[in-house]
């Protein structure tokens, strides 16, 4: 049993990358669920997107043998950049209007 575990740890393969991405995804979801600061929520979203990208690349490398997963990962990065820009613009606007960026205090559509 111990031998098997050591052997498993010595051969990083698809499952190892998938588990890293699973942990990263869970940490991102934790940040989204618990943090009050809207920018921290954005950081959680970035962690989740990175976890998804690791999955795309791992499957592209180990199960398909083509580069389709890498191209999809590029589109994910493009959308992440667009999302970060828009979301930060919205957060700045909220800060100007409410003087806070805590997501649980922003509960009015208008002043």
């Amino acid at each position, binding site marked *: 049993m111990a031998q098997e575990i050591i052997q498993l740890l010595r051969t990083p393969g698809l499952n190892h990358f998938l588990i890293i991405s699973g942990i990263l995804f869970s940490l991102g979801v*934790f940040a989204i*669920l618990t943090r009050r600061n809207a920018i921290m929520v954005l950081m959680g979203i970035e*962690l989740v997107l990175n976890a998804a990208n690791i999955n795309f690349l791992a499957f592209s490398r180990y199960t398909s043998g083509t580069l389709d997963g890498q191209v999809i990962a590029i589109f994910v990065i493009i959308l992440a950049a667009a999302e970060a820009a828009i979301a930060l*613009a919205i*957060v700045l606007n909220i800060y100007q209007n409410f003087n806070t960026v805590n997501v649980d205090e922003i509960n009015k559509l208008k002043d």
Partner: protein
Amino acid sequence: MDLYIIVFYLFALITIVSAAVVVISKNIVYSAFALLFTFFGVAGLYVLLMADFLAITQLLIYVGGILVLIIFGVMLTTRVIQVDMRTSAIQTVPAVIIVAALAGTLIGMFWSTDWPMAPASQAFEKTTPKIGEMLLTSYLLPFEIASVVLLVALVGAAMIARRERKAS
């Protein structure tokens, strides 16, 4: 092959530990800087997955672009002068339960599934020419749509973030 294992665990450790710091740290500036190391670790994992172009793209766009944007957001929305950088957390206990269940389910599913493995070639091949070719052949339409999305996001972000000018 031994070096590969060492580097894999090094990057895995950097990624997971700094992501945990991002999530747990109370100081939002510490979180932003820990996010830098997370992105570096993920770029290293991309290299180990033989995605050289993606690794460089990750460094350029995430570290050079998105992280700078996030730090700008931190600077503009936190009262730097009053050293009020602390951010609090809410609903910690239910979130821990939900996230633990989520992580357990994901990892159990990853272990128990018998993925269809293709014979992975050990030799490294340059991916940039192939990705460029695919972007201009089979992925041409998504590529063009992505360019329009970026333009719209650019205009939209500038439009949303600018201050309202008083009508004179």
